[in-house]
């Protein structure tokens, strides 16, 4: 569990008095004890540290040794400890939302320990953090240049605007003025290994980051097959139900955060689906995890189930579900082997169930309605005619009406979301500052901003702190009882189906592929690219609808649609390519005569 202390110390090598073994550990009080015979000796860690080289440290996860610095800088702490606090809080929040308690106490904890071990931050003989940057000890700045593995912050590839300023704040020219009293503190950071975390790049090692905390959470949720998709999780984070943006405010008071720690723990963007997802896959491989528990067709994450959810949310007829199931069967995406995450198996590394389900729905809509900006409107004309005549009985699904209803709703919701995002407060009570001398100014500024916010808050009518609505899985709900007929769940697909024997076939005889050829992922990062102007307005609308529901970029959904289509029409495409001598270019609309 989280309470274990995993202390070990390698510098004390005297044989134990009682059992002559050299196997020492540390108690919570900092005294040495022999692991073989549990003999506690008087020698404490404090004594050692004073005459040992600054490389020696204790690694303890739960409470560990907290040395109160003379300058009252709080505890010594490692970056991964900070992340541990955050993960704990996130897991607790998820538990509050109804997730099984096993997630926190067993799964996540296990993953985390495994990660610490693999990345050599703890639970291992020689943790990586034992060698902080030598800059601290050296007097001259020339040592900076002589470090071969050192990567200057100017080389970092992923830059955001705020990074540049962090450099100017803690430029290397100021190293000589670092507080000399703490030998073990690294350059300008509250944590011990903050600077090495940010600057050093060890190959093959996975550096922890804020988005990665969500990767951990999702991985644990996936292991337990909880009914939470990644997009749901990220939405809960954005709505504030799960700590993320100012998660560091849950650190105990004695853990001081400043300097380069900000680069690690300060968040100025919402987590992106792609980033969290890719990190999760990387993590699963890094941890050498075995095959995840199997996703079967009774599982919430199975496309057969998830499609129901998204069909309901998009206000589409329930009857479409049988069609999604057929597509799932035909393409094989419902297979357990395909769905279950297996880090070792390249082809079983997807686990994007939400995007998959949504893409299937889009493909079904294309199959039935064609969505070429003409056919679907013609069909809806027929439906409208028919619905006018037959008021009783089930209504035929009218695409035009559906479009109007959903578009109106979407416009309102998108506007609401945009305003909410603009009103969101990013800063919390705990001020962040780069260096000790900035602290006073930062605190003062924070106080002033708070008082100004109160002043303007008094001018507004509504109370500023509104109770957060409890999160729900469904963002849009449609009332079937509503007499104005704005709910389409019960509508029939009769209008565009024809009976052939006992099978229903779509009247639409055509289909257009989003792309003829898939890209090479290694070259351009994605299998397909989305350019708005290339596609019909109806298709764009539907993409935007699901992009809004999932809070995901349209290009990701589009990519998945391309993939599904290629699976579905694999036979045809395969035949076609044999006839041609040269492969065609990507993203050209091509009409294929086919029948499903």
């Amino acid at each position, binding site marked *: 569990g989280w309470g274990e202390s995993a202390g070990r110390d390698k510098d004390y090598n005297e044989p134990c008095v009682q059992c002559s073994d050299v196997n020492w550990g540390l108690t919570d009080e900092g005294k040495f004890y022999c692991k073989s015979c549990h003999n506690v000796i008087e020698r404490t860690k404090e004594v050692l540290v004073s005459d040992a080289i600054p490389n020696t440290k204790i690694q303890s996860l739960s409470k560990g040794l907290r040395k109160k610095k003379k300058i009252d800088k709080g505890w010594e702490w490692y970056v991964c400890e900070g992340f541990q606090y955050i993960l704990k809080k996130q897991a607790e929040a998820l538990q509050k939302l109804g997730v099984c308690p096993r997630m926190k106490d067993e799964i996540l904890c296990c993953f985390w320990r495994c990660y610490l071990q693999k990345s050599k931050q703890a639970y291992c003989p020689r943790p990586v953090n034992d060698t902080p940057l030598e800059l601290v000890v050296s007097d001259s700045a020339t040592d900076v240049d002589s470090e071969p593995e050192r990567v200057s912050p100017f080389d970092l590839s992923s*830059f*955001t*605007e*705020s990074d540049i*300023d*962090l450099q*100017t704040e803690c430029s290397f020219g100021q190293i000589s003025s670092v507080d000399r009293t703490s030998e073990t503190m690294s350059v300008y950071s509250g944590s011990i290994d903050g600077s090495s975390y940010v600057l050093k790049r060890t190959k093959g090692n996975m550096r922890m980051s804020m988005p990665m905390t969500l990767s951990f959470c999702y991985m644990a949720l996936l292991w337990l097959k909880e009914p939470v998709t990644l997009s749901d999780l990220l939405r809960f984070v954005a709505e504030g139900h799960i700590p993320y943006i100012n998660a560091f405010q849950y650190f105990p008071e004695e853990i001081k955060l400043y300097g380069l720690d900000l680069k690690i723990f*300060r968040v*100025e*963007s*919402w987590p992106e689906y792609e980033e969290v997802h890719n990190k999760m896959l990387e993590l699963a491989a890094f941890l050498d995890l075995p095959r995840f528990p199997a996703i079967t067709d009774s599982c919430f994450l199975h496309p057969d189930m998830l499609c129901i959810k998204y069909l309901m949310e998009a206000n589409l007829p329930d009857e479409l579900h049988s069609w999604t199931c057929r597509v799932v069967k035909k393409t094989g995406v419902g297979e357990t082997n395909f769905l279950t995450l297996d880090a070792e198996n390249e082809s079983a590394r997807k686990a994007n169930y939400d995007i998959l389900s949504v893409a299937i729905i889009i493909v079904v809509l294309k199959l039935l309605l064609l969505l070429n900006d003409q056919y679907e409107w013609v069909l809806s004309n027929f439906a409208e005619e028919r619905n006018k005549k037959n008021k009783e009985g089930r209504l035929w699904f009218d695409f035009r009406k559906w479009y109007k209803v959903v578009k109106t709703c979407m416009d309102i919701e998108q506007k609401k979301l*945009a*305003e909410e*995002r*603009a*009103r*969101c*407060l*990013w*800063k919390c009570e705990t001020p962040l500052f780069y260096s000790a001398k900035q602290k006073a100014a*930062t605190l003062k*500024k*924070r106080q*002033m*901003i708070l*008082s*100004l*916010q109160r*002043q*303007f*808050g*008094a*001018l*507004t*009518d*509504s109370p*500023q702190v509104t109770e957060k609505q409890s999160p729900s899985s469904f963002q849009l709900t449609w009332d079937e009882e509503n007499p104005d007929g704005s709910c389409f769940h019960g509508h029939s697909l009769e209008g565009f189906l024809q009976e052939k024997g006992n099978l229903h076939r779509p009247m639409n005889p055509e289909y257009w592929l989003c792309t003829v050829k898939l*890209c090479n992922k290694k*070259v*351009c*990062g994605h299998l397909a690219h989305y350019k708005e102007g290339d596609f019909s307005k109806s298709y764009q609308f539907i993409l935007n609808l699901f992009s809004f529901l999932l809070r995901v970029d349209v290009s990701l959904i589009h990519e998945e649609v391309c993939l599904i289509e290629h699976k579905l029409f694999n036979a045809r495409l395969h035949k076609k390519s044999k006839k041609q001598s040269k492969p065609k270019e990507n993203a050209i609309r091509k009409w294929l005569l086919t029948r499903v």
Partner: protein
Amino acid sequence: MDGLVEEPALGEEGDSLAPSIHLPLLPRCFYHPVTVGRKKTEFQKTKEACLNYIQDALLQNQWQRAAEFMISYLEILESSTVSKRKTAPEAIWRIGTEILLHHSKSNIEELNYFTERMKNLGVKNYLKVCLEHIFYLLCNGLIDEAYQNLTLAEGWRYGEQTAAQNDELKLIQAYKGLLDYYNWSKKRKAMLELDEENFTDSSEQEMHNFFRQAAVNLKEIIKIPGVWDPFVVCYVDLLEFYGDYDEAREVLTEYAYNSKFPPNPNAHVYLYHFLKRQGESKKSLVSVLKILHKTVPSHELMLEFYTMLTKSKKRKKRRLGLEVIFEVLDFAGWKENVKAWSCLAEQIKQILENSNKHLDWVKEEWNSRKDWWPAFHFSHYLAKRNWQENEKLAYEKALLAGILLGKDCKYYKYVLHQGCKAKKKRFQTLKKFVKKHSSAYLRISACSDSSTHL
């Protein structure tokens, strides 16, 4: 795309003329261009959106909504981008002031509280904020508070002052000078109402203190090229009270004639009035007003100017006088000014009765006006209106109409008819007069190609 080296096409004509092009191999990263670069964080994006919402709300006078978004926008002060942090204080100050000025729940205390916070936000804006706040206080009649703030701001110094701060400081000193003058004049008024025995030394001393402070600051600001009308007036008042006429004269002359200063008719007006008070000779007065005439021919002092000119013995001056009076009546504001019309009428009469010696003057002046004055001044509609509203005006104008446009002029005919009907004696004389000088009309409008007959 296996390299993009083009080979020269074989068998093409004239390949000696067109050298082959060897394009370099395109690096892999150009195959699929993708936007890379500094990504904007969500924080920056949402703050930009927030600003847009605030701007929209301000433009639509939705103060409540603007205040709501302001709560979130205040966080821009803690932005991690240095450039944003630098420009944030001014934006916050201006938006906040705008909201607090208009919001129904806000009052002066709120604004004062807010402005104090803004002053602490940054060195760069301190004086600007002070100055605007002082303007606000003055506009709302809070003279004492304004004075306090001015005193505080005047004494503010921070490191090396930039040029912009220098200007602001000068403005602050100038307004302090103005308020010192205001206090001085209050004191002066109070003292004038008391008897001489009740003069206390201290109050007189106070008055002198105000005078000194005011004089120093006002003098400084007037040195800078600009438009400082109220400051000049106050300063001259001070100087005159204490008898420093030389200084006053110099100040006013500088203000009016220094080419570095923007052209300002008021400067000449102030100078003129001062010289008049000093009892200067007509010659110098006329020279001052000459410039005023050039810049603002429709100025109200023009009548005074005209009177001075016509009284002169010099022919040139009298000629100028005629020009002045004609020009004054070119402007719509003088259309119904009886005095101006009677002056002109008087002048014309004199010329006519003076054996037409200077009729060509009239001809010159009338030449440029004969196309449009008839419609402008002497229309039938105006005849009716003038007769209804102001008989004297109608009379004077009729006289001129009769002389300048002949007795067939509609205006003249109508007014004359009305006047004779009303049995006003002078209209009979008018009729005789015009008849007598009907030849003048012909001479005046002699060289006209398109004489407009009304």
